[in-house]
Every structure is written in C-alpha cells, then in structure tokens.
C-alpha cells in the first residue's frame, strides 16, 4: 500500500515513557478482525485509552490535549510481541509518521518501515533528554531529518545521528516498496526456485 514519502519531519511529540510496549497494547487482538486496512487508528492503544464503557481514560497521554504531533516517543523495547502489522497501521492511521525509542522489537521495526513509519533508535541518554524536554514544554519540537539521519531537539539544538540501511532509506524517501524491487528481479527468483530441494 502506498504511503507518503518521508524526508524531513518537524513536529511536537507525544511522550510514552513506558518500557516493553507490546503490540497487544498498541492494538488488542479483538480489533484484528477487519479484512481491509482502514480505521485502525480509532483503536490505537484501545485498553489504555478507553474504559470498558468506552469513555476516555483521562490520565492517558493520547487523551491529554496538551500533547500532540506526528512523533510518538516510547520507552525501551517498543513494539514487542505479536507480529501484527495492524499495530503499525494503527500508529500510522492515527497520524504518527515517526516513532522514537532507545530500542525496538525487530518485527515491529520492519513492519513500520514497510508501511511508511520511520523508527528512530536513539541512545538511552538522548531518549531521556527528549522525555525531559517534552515534560518541561509539551510544545517543544523535534526535527527528524531522514536524508541526514539526524534527530534534533530544536529548542536546544542537541542532535543525534540514527542508523538506517541505505536501501530502506531510499525507499522511504521515494515512497517505494519492496514488491516493486522483487518484481523487477523475478527471473532471478524463478531460476533460484528451480534448484530448490523442497
């Protein structure tokens, strides 16, 4: 599915300083029954966001109007657990384009890149600085620069480099996906398959 190209994102951020945010929290299994990819943002963090009678939980960050923006900042081991890409869809559909953490679970990271969300891994120290900056001023802005591979706290100018492989970076900046690439090398794949033992 096509997604918007990603180059430079300047935005306020939503802080979620919780470790091990698993994909069951991001989107509980009972909301995985759709056969189309739409509307998942409504159920993002459903059980942290709403009471059982569907009223919003006031103390949850997404229900606090002070915080907004296209960047979600999470604690260590973000996106662990189930491989459900619905978690990345829900984050994208809600309006986030970038998730920042000191550590991502592998499958979530891959899924994010495949749907047009940039996962930015920062040091524990820098993550702490981001949380403190948002706490001090919820309107503080971050700049995520994909071409330069930097993330910057605009208020102080503090910046850190992040890693991404060149292939995925090129895809995100141009809105390409892997299937375009794989379709172009089909003859290599069919030749390979012919030699397969299985």
């Amino acid at each position: 599915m096509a997604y918007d190209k990603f180059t430079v994102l300047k935005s306020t951020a939503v802080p979620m300083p919780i470790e091990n945010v698993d994909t069951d929290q991001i989107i509980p299994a009972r909301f995985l029954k759709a056969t189309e990819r739409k509307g998942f943002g409504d159920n993002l963090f459903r059980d942290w966001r709403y009471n059982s009678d569907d009223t919003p939980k006031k103390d949850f960050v997404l229900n606090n109007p002070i915080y907004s923006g296209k960047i979600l900042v999470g604690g260590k081991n973000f996106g662990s657990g189930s491989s459900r890409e619905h978690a990345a869809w829900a984050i994208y559909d809600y309006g986030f384009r970038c998730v920042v953490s000191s550590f991502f679970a592998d499958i979530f990271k891959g899924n994010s890149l495949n749907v047009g969300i940039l996962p930015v891994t920062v040091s524990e120290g820098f993550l702490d600085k981001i949380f403190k900056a948002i706490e001090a001023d919820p309107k503080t802005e971050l700049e995520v620069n994909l071409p330069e591979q930097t993330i910057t706290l605009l208020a102080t100018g503090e910046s850190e480099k992040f890693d991404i492989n060149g292939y995925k970076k090129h895809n995100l900046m141009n809105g390409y996906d892997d299937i375009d690439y794989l379709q172009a090398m089909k003859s290599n794949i069919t030749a390979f398959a012919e030699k397969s033992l299985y």
Partner: protein
Amino acid sequence: MSNKPASLFDKVWDAHVVRSIPDGPDVLFIDRHFIHEVTSPVAFLGIENRGISVLYPQRTFATADHNTPTINQDQPVKDPLSAKQLAALSSNAQKYGISIWALGSPKNGIVHVVGPENGITLPGMTIVCGDSHTSTHGAFGCIAFGIGTSEVEMVLASQCIMQPKPKKMRITINGKLGKGVLPKDVALYMISQITASGATGYFCEYAGEVFENMSMEGRMTVCNMSIEMGARGGMIAPDETTFNYVKGRDKAPKGEAWDKALAYWKTLKTDDGAVFDKELVFNASNIEPQITYGTNPGLGTGITHSIPKASEVKDGEASYKKSLAYMDFQEGQPLLGKKIDYVFLGSCTNGRIEDFRAFAKVVKGRKKADNITAWLVPGSHIVEEQIKKEGILDILNEAGFELRQPGCSACLAMNDDKIPAGKYAVSTSNRNFEGRQGPGARTLLASPYVAAAVAVTGVVTDPRELLNEA
C-alpha cells in the same frame, strides 16, 4: 562456499540468499509460507490491487485458527466479522490455488501444530508466516520467523522476503532436567534470565544435552518461545529424533527423495569452531518448574520463589510497578498458594499430544477444583484424535475436565474464549501481556504440569508434590 567453520544458521541462511543488496537486506527465498485468516486478507487485497498473482501457490499453506470457535465448530460462526475473515481466507485460497485446511477440515488446527504434524515443515527450510510464533518450526533446524502483512504480500508475490541478516546467539544447556521440569520451564527460565528483549536482533541456536535429549514436541515448545525474549527465531540442529519424527509424515519426501534429503539434512549442524556474536550457558540443574507473575514473559521465576522486589529485576522500576499493579501482586508476595480462577491448556506453545499426556499424568485419579474453570484446547484435530486414542480423554473426563475443539482460543482471545476482567488464569500459552487473554485478564504462564496441578488444587501448586504422590 568458504571452508570457514559455519553455524547451522549460516548454512541454512546462505543456502537461501537469492541476492544481497549492498547497504541493504538480503533477498531470501522462502520454502514454505503458512497463512491464516487474520494477517492474510490485506495481503491478498494488495496483490489484487497491483494486478499480480501468487508466484508459487504450492509453497503456501492455509489453515484457519486464530478466530475460530472451540465449541460447535459444525455450526456457522456467530461473530460476523470472524465469519467474514474465515470466508476471505477460503475464497483467497480457492482463487489462487492454495491448499487450505478450513474450519471443519479433519486436518484443521493451529498453523504451527499442523505444519510439522503433516510433514509440511522439513529440516533446513526457510519458513515464514504472519505470526510471531512461526519460530516454532526452528525445532526442525529451519530458519522460521514471523512476518508482517506487507511481507505476507511480498511472499505471495515473489516467494521472497527482504531481511537484514540477524546476529547469532548460541544458548547451551547441559546436564539433566529435574523431576517435574518440562521444556516450557526451560523456555520460561531462559527468558527470565535474558529478559523479554535480551535476544532482540539475534537468531538463537539451542545446543547441549538438554535439547539433544528433548522430544520434537519439546523442541517446538522451546523454539516457539524464542520470540518472547526478543529473538526473531530459534533453531535446533536436526538429528535422529528429528528424522524419526519427520519420516512417513503425509508430505515428507519418500523413497529416493527421502534418502537425498536425509543426506543433506545430516550436514545441518554447527561446525566446531563456528563463531557466534553471543554465547550463553546455563545449567539444567538450576531450572525448577517456572511461573510468571508480571505482564511480559521475562517476569517469571521458580514456582517456589516469591515475587522479586523492583530493585531485583532488570525492567525499569516504573514499568515493573505498573506491571504488578495490573496483576494486583505485591513485591515479595509468595506465588505458591495464590488462588486461581481459570486454567488454559493449549496454544501453539503447549497444545500437542505430549502436553496433554503431561496434564493427564497429574490429574489422573484426582478431581478438578471447584473454583477452576478449565479450557483444554488441542492444537489440531490430529492431536484431538490422538488424545482419544490413547485414553487420555477418559482420564480427563473422569477428573471432571472436558475437551474443546482445536484453535488458538484463549491464547489471544480473538474468539469467545476470553478470561474475564480481574480473573487469574494459569496458561500454557506464550504471552502474559495486559489484556492478552481478554480485557483486564491476569495471566500466569506455566507448563502443562503446573497448569494441571493448579487445575486440581485451585491454587498455584508445585507439580512435583503431586508427581511424587503418583
């Protein structure tokens, strides 16, 4: 091919690389692709929108499991959304010529149970599925891991996925497991030592006497839980135990094809001197029956222990306190004697015949505790038949238990099998996340022995006490 000592992982990975993209991932050829109703419909829509077809439909197998009811499977599925997903799986399979074991088929069951039991899973394969517990198939010396729906679409379209090669970790456990200690305890013990994120970025190989002496069912349980310490997958070198399990299965090679395959499979082991990015060694004698008390699988301990203090765990203090608050547990509280409401035996972790044998061994001649609601869910119809054939069903019925029909069931509670809010469940499944088994449900993960001991006593009980009496 170089002559440098190679690991099992390298041998299987390198044999499947179609192309290495410079400063990018490897294009990896996939031998087997499993699909189910939850993570595949959007992938099929994707290839449809692109106007392309499934490249190798004979390499993909479909089964319905995540959303299926575990009673009255002969009747129409009541939930309209679940019914629609199941119908989508069937129509997509039919449209593209993919084999399917739909609800009601005698071979239907949980994807990671039916793959191995029908010989679809074979040593040395690359296997993917839109389900993180695909790591189960690593028990056969496969590189098997869970993928997202975009990647399901990729495999349908091209039989390949793009993956950066992970780092390698070897976990060696030598010695002999004590009485009452099952493969599930080995898995929970490793996760408690490594933490729920400690193996992220790695692919694990399990080595040593404990795994060499383990049955295929046990190896599947261990490899299944690899993802719960963050590893993409885990694998065990195929050996005589593996070959004996595979031989004669429905889709396993026969005759000359078997001999050829076997000769290759015998080369699939880590060479002496192969280098790993990380090596961990544990001692079997330190492992007692385990149970979890928190909201990630790394928060577990020996069943005779108390819940650790915040200062004793590797998780951050705020996250740990949030976790215990959800469970309504206190630091320092003993686990033995804790009153439990539900017991769940099943899932791709512990829904195989050996798990039912273990459960039956403990409950035989005893009675289900009055305060316990027990859901016993076989992993497949083949497991269900075996349970009946071996007389296990009679033992269970005699003790006051009933058997449900196969499916993922309360492991992720997508169907009606939901643990009510605030209730405690001892589950043989794989995740104790908040709300995993139903909104507000509190899950303690454990082995089939522990689940059985809880089922007959109504409280957290050391199964060794009951096994000693038996």
